[in-house]
């Protein structure tokens, strides 16, 4: 066997790939060959490291040096300096924003300090397209243990004892769900992995499927053994081409190695996995709609019961779990329920992966123990708000979730605390907002999304969301009345309580949570006809401060509608009736004489 003294890891996640990592890889191959290093240095394309903001990323082991924002033209320097002569290329190291110090070691980045990587432990570390790399990290050892040493009942018991709860949003105890399906009557039984991931801004499941696809497959196979299922489906949106490709490859490799398919590891247990591409509708993440979609029907939910455990795919017992839920299973079986239950809180065990986006320094993927506070995630790991702006709110759980204000930042991140505060854990999308964000506008954004994604089957969701959106539009246009707030609240509760599926039942959350924490901002729009964040165009006015205006005429030239009048060296005036509040004049004015009010 050949030993490589150094391994160069190039991130092949979606973010870094679009940033140009394939070219970096090609250049590395060329440069390594040119310098005769291809026998000493191994090139490994990995999944996502999480720090997407800093991509494309290149990491050099054994030192663990991380290079950020690497461009193809930087490659020859990395090869000739670092890989040949052992000299770190300082200018490509991560720069700590506060101290401006260069951080040479991957592990020393504040971004990784408070993280605890269980589900993501291989993401960014192994080549997801080579099954041996997964096996070299104890991959499939849990499956071997389950098949060789445990009965199906013992596997279910272990998962129950671990306290694993569904990571798809609702947090239902996974072991209990498996038990229902095991005890259900009917053959064959099915397993589904939910990789629909329809929340805007969420990319946790994508990164797991891309970066460590075998973990998902192993988790599903262990689940199939526990439940007694023989067929499995991974439902993944077609907008994730890289995930689809890697999953397909992983299934093929696992089959070739006898770790999937007929007679797994020489036993009499057989399990087959099929990849099903979805078209990406949000509602198709809902389990009954998802199953309809797999069966080739229109993706619409149906009432439950019957639950999938009793009547799922083709009327047979079916167990559906989220990607991240499945990805937790191998670690639990391998290291034991007690190890898993030692992480997290009383009622919420283990870790959770979040996609951190919005107005935060380090956007990216983070995995943290349950029970951490939102403040730690946003400020310690995320590095706080860029540009010296003030934190305003964090939106959790996407369109089904809620907005939490500053006062709730010290809340423990677990299912119960978040639900109590009016947000939800959701699947793990975290959008951070600063003072320039208008809360009414945020609610409108999410309602627009759910209105477009509502399947239309039940009336409360189809009509109710539309009516609420109309009210929000009115308020944003400065035409709202105080009674509207009551109407909004009543409609929201009606939609929440009477919709058929989770889409409608949770769609009002963005409204209810913002009414709860930011009511004054709604009132400012209605009573004072004012948008405090300066976002709602209809409520803005632009004025020229006469004492600052020098009459340079710059503003008249950029105004697209000719709303500004004035001659050279004389004070200019904006005609409020013509002004469309685009703000171009204020941006252009060299004397900061134009103000928004």
């Amino acid at each position, binding site marked *: *066997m*050949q*030993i*490589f*003294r*150094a*391994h160069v*890891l190039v991130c092949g996640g979606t973010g870094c790939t679009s940033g140009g990592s394939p070219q970096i890889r090609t250049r590395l191959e060329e440069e390594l060959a040119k310098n*005769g290093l291809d*026998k*000493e240095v*191994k090139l490994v394309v990995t999944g996502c490291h999480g720090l997407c903001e800093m991509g494309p990323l290149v990491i050099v*082991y*054994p*030192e*663990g040096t991380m290079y950020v924002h690497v461009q193809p033209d930087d490659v020859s320097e990395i090869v000739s300096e670092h890989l*040949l*002569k*052992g*000299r770190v290329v300082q200018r490509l190291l991560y720069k700590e924003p506060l101290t401006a110090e260069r951080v040479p070691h991957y592990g020393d980045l504040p971004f990784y300090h408070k993280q605890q990587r269980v589900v993501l432990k291989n993401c960014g*570390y*192994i080549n997801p397209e080579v*099954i*041996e*790399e997964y*096996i*070299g*990290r*104890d991959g*499939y*050892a849990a499956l*071997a243990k389950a098949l*060789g040493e445990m009965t199906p009942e013992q596997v279910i018991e272990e998962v129950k004892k671990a306290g694993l709860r569904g990571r798809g949003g609702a947090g239902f105890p996974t072991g209990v769900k498996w038990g229902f399906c095991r005890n259900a009557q009917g053959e064959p039984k099915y397993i589904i992995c939910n990789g629909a991931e329809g929340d805007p801004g969420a990319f946790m499941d994508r990164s797991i499927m891309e970066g460590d696809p075998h973990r998902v497959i192993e988790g599903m196979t262990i689940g199939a053994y526990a439940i007694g299922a023989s067929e499995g489906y991974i439902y993944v949106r077609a907008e994730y081409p890289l995930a689809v490709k890697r999953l397909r490859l992983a299934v093929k*490799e696992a089959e*070739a*190695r*006898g*770790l999937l398919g007929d007679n797994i*590891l*020489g036993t009499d247990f057989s399990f087959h996995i099929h990849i099903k591409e979805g078209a990406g509708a949000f509602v198709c993440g809902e389990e009954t709609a998802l199953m309809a979609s797999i069966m080739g029907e229109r993706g619409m939910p149906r009432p439950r019961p019957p639950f999938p455990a009793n009547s799922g795919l083709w009327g047979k017992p079916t167990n559906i779990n989220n990607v991240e839920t499945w990805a937790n299973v191998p670690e639990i079986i391998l290291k034991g329920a007690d190890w898993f239950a030692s992480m997290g809180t009383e009622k919420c065990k283990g870790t959770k992966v979040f996609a951190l986006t919005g107005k935060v320094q380090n956007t990216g993927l983070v995995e943290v123990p349950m029970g951490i506070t939102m403040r730690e995630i946003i400020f310690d790991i995320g590095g706080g708000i860029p540009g010296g702006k003030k934190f305003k709110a964090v939106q959790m759980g996407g369109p089904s979730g809620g907005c939490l204000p500053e006062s709730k930042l010290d809340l423990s991140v677990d299912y119960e605390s978040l639900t109590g505060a009016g947000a939800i854990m959701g699947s793990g999308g975290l959008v951070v907002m600063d003072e320039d964000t208008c809360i009414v506008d945020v609610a409108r954004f999410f309602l627009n999304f759910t209105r477009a994604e509502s399947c239309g089957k039940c009336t409360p969701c189809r009509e109710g969301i539309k009516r609420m959106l109309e009210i929000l539009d009115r308020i944003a246009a400065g035409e709202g009345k105080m009674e509207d707030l009551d109407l909004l609240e009543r409609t929201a509760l009606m939609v929440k309580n009477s919709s058929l599926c989770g889409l409608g039942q949770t769609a009002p959350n963005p409204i209810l949570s913002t009414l709860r924490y930011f009511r004054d901002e709604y009132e400012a729009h209605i009573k004072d006809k004012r948008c405090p964040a300066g976002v709602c165009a209809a409520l803005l006015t632009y004025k020229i401060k006469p004492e600052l205006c020098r009459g340079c005429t710059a503003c008249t030239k950029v105004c697209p509608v000719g709303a500004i009048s004035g001659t050279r060296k004389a004070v200019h005036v904006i005609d409020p009736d013509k002004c469309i509040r685009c703000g171009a004049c204020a941006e252009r004015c060299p004397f900061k004489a134009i103000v928004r009010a």
Partner: protein
Amino acid sequence: MANKLQNLDDLRRLREETKQSMLSRHGAETQIIVGMGTCGIASGAREVMAAILEELAKRNLNVTVLQTGCIGMCEKEPLVDVVRPGENRITYGNVTPRDVPRIIGQHVVNGQIVEDLVVGRVD
């Protein structure tokens, strides 16, 4: 084409094999450092490096191999340092590929310094 794994032992064997090949991704406790400045390369450090990697592979050893630049002892290049945990850093000079099995066999594995090649010690 990959072979099917028939049982637990097959899986275990494959795991151990791949683990070995992935060792470079965590730093091991023992380090071998090769001088790779222009002077080192000119006097044959690349060949020494190749010999080291070959010897480590042959013996299945978990050792971190690093390079360093010129340290000012150009006439003694190629220079190879061996650092074992808790022991002095030993520098060998004028190393040739032929010396490598001795350095690794005696010093890296058994902790006995190859005295005739030593040009420096640091603690």
